[in-house]
């Protein structure tokens, strides 16, 4: 058992505080939109191509509308206007709109306005039906080839070339991987567009593009069929294009996405407002598409000390959960992130790590949870490194993690060799097989080190939540309360892509996803 350690009422109180902390941010989200959310709307309408020099059409159109000062009415509205002007296809709509002089964008009669909205809403419903049928197709394959029991073993490929990634992903699946993550090219999170097409050059990873998603999912569908075991695919909905990536992923039937309400702010210095607004729409899409999100709290303890900052992970998890729930995500979709990162040269670290993982399990009993392996204190002694990873395997099975990223013995050296994944998968399978059910065999004493540490961390997390509640999220982030990183509300990248919505702002997808129209 992952303990009571803490009373149910205390956990309920933490959850309540988190809800109240995120509340004011929803006011910001309601009042504003962003260039990336508007581009997502256009992608929903099928505007997924690219123009000359590979600039995505969605960017061309949104930039044009922004320059004309009319984007605050919503890209969907202008898409409707283009259709009314006789555009026969999404591409034509883009051409018409981008060719239009700004003064031609004046108001219509109220009747015409209403017709336009009705037509665009109908098209939005059709687009969402199409998306739903793609999701249903994915779910059918999942049912046909059931997944292995949790923890789902998650490994990474990162060659930079999608076709090489496919070879490595297939090999990993054959070696027992349940989830394949394609690491993105370095700094893609700072691109204010989603690159187009299949890509074969990337630094430190492979560009997340809709076509790359399609290629990898197709390969994994084949592999699932061959192995009679469904292999999940994940990517990264983070950075300046959270909602666009979420759309591309949903459309190409991805199963998971890294998606965190604060990660971009803290670790990529993306503007706070931009991130809060983008994450909401991206999570609405994930909610619809049955995508499991993975949050990034594990990152806090790669910058801050894992022992000292353990409580910031817990506090942030409650906040991330609140954001997620407000976007319609269900418990089963919350791959709440944490990790095995305490300095292994301390005493009692297995107990401390168990305590932390049990505490997370206790606070989020119905979420799958996403468990990260050690990285920060990894050594180039691969034999020690391997032993270190195996301890994380044990904690993962003990605390019933839903998703476990496997540590690589060469973590401190280079991107994993093919054999590193094999070795990690083999030993994780062994530990999971050997220790499944261990939590039911042992009851953790309520007066021991594990329980006491869990109570200590939880009470510090409560203090931090109280502080955020009193001073607000913005102030807490400004003080470096999360991950030791300080950010200001108007700092960071992407603020110029935030716009206040006009009173007649129109986004039929958000309306439908929020259930305000059917």
């Amino acid at each position, binding site marked *: 058992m992952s303990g009571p350690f803490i009373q149910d009422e205390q956990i309920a109180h933490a959850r309540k505080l988190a809800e109240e902390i995120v509340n004011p941010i929803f006011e910001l989200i309601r009042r504003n939109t962003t260039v990336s959310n508007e581009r997502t709307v256009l992608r929903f309408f099928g505007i997924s191509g690219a123009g000359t020099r590979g600039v995505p059409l969605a960017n061309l159109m949104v930039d044009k509308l922004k320059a004309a000062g009319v984007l605050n009415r919503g890209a969907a509205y202008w898409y409707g206007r283009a259709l009314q002007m006789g555009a026969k296809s999404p591409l034509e709509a883009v051409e018409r709109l981008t060719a239009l002089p700004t003064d031609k964008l004046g108001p219509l009669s109220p009747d015409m306005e209403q017709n336009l909205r009705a037509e665009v809403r109908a098209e939005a419903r059709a687009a969402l039906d199409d998306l739903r049928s793609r999701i249903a197709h994915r779910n059918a394959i999942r049912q046909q080839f059931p997944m292995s029991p949790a923890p789902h073993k998650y490994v990474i490929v*990162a060659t*930079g070339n999608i076709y090489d990634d496919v070879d490595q992903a*297939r*090999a*990993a699946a*054959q*070696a027992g991987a349940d989830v394949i993550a394609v690491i993105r090219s*370095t*700094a893609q*999170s*700072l691109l204010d567009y989603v690159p187009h097409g299949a890509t074969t050059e*990337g*630094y*430190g*990873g492979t560009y997340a593009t809709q076509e790359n998603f399609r290629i990898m999912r197709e390969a994994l569908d084949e592999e699932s069929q061959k192995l009679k075991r469904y292999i999940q695919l994940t990517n990264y909905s983070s950075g300046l294009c959270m909602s666009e990536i979420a759309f591309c992923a949903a459309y190409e039937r991805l199963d998971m996405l890294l998606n965190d309400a604060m990660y971009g702010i803290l*670790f*990529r*210095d993306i503007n706070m407002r931009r991130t809060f607004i983008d994450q909401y729409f991206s999570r609405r899409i994930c909610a619809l598409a049955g995508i499991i999100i993975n949050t990034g709290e594990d990152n806090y303890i*790669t*910058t*801050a*000390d894992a022992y000292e900052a353990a409580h910031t992970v817990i506090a942030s998890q409650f906040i991330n959960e609140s954001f997620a729930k407000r976007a319609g995500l269900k418990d089963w979709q919350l791959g709440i992130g944490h990790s095995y990162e305490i*300095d292994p*040269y301390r005493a009692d670290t297995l107990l401390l790590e168990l305590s932390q993982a049990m505490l997370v399990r206790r606070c989020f009993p119905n979420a799958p949870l996403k468990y990260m392996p050690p990285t*920060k*204190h990894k*050594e*180039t002694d691969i034999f020690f490194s391997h032993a270190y990873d195996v301890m994380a395997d044990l904690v993962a099975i003990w605390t019933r993690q839903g998703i476990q990223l496997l540590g690589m013995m060469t973590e*401190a*050296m*280079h*991107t994993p*060799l*093919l*054999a590193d994944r*094999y*070795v990690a998968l*083999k030993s994780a399978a062994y530990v999971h097989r050997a220790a499944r059910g261990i939590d039911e065999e042992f009851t953790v004493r309520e007066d021991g080190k594990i329980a006491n540490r869990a109570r200590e961390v939880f009470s510090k997390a409560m203090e931090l939540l109280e502080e955020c509640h009193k001073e607000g999220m913005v102030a807490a982030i400004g003080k470096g309360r999360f991950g*030791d990183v300080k950010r200001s509300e108007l700092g960071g990248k992407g603020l110029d892509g935030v716009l206040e919505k006009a009173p007649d702002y129109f986004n039929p997808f958000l309306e439908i996803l929020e259930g305000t129209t059917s």
Partner: protein
Amino acid sequence: MVKPTKQIIRPYGDRRDDGVVQLSFTFPVPLSEKAKEAAAQFVRKMGFSDVKVASAERAADNYTFFIVYARSGMYIDYAEVDVPELVIKKMGFDDLNAFIQQKVGRRIVVFGACTGTDTHTVGIDAILNMKGYAGDYGLERYPWFEAYNLGSQVPNEELITKALAKSADAILVSQVVTQRDVHKDNSRQFIEAAKARGLHGKTILLLGGPRVDHKLALELGFDAGFGPGTKPSDVANFIVHALLKKLGKEDPNAHYQGEPT
């Protein structure tokens, strides 16, 4: 100096001079007897004898992973291995601060960043942040260092401009991502920029990262390179001695414990 006498050494497995080495590698072929024999032949071709393919495993349908033990007939004359002699002891936090106060007489200004497109602050943070790494305090904690950590994705030019504005004594460039040698390209670009701004040869320029070593850094034009496992105190010691050498307060040929080699 008197040439030392020969000291022949070989790898030690479980007997002196048995020359036993362990190897592991993967072939892109399915597991089979033929694959195992190919692995053995490959290892013999590298000059090993008594080759034992201890393990051959199916890493995937078309990949086989081998663990091999073999003997090498090679040896090394340890006496011939030339590594500079230690003359100065590596100093800890308190000693080094006192040493700076006494010898330099002012705070040493250090700038650091992970430059180019690299987003990873883990390396530069380990060296500069208060917290440090593996229980070894970062440079921000040293009262006699004035450390500025600019974080990640900092353009080389910007790092140089900011460092110049504060008359930095040393600049640390961290490079974590190494895909297709992007770290080398970016580091070269940094050195070009430093030369253009007249910093090269004046300010102490350091390179760090998981795939960096001292030799590579010197080749690229840096004063030193720091690889995986480097502690903040290693960097701090290097900077102090390098600065004293530049100021003519220390013998340019002096070596100390723990310096990069």
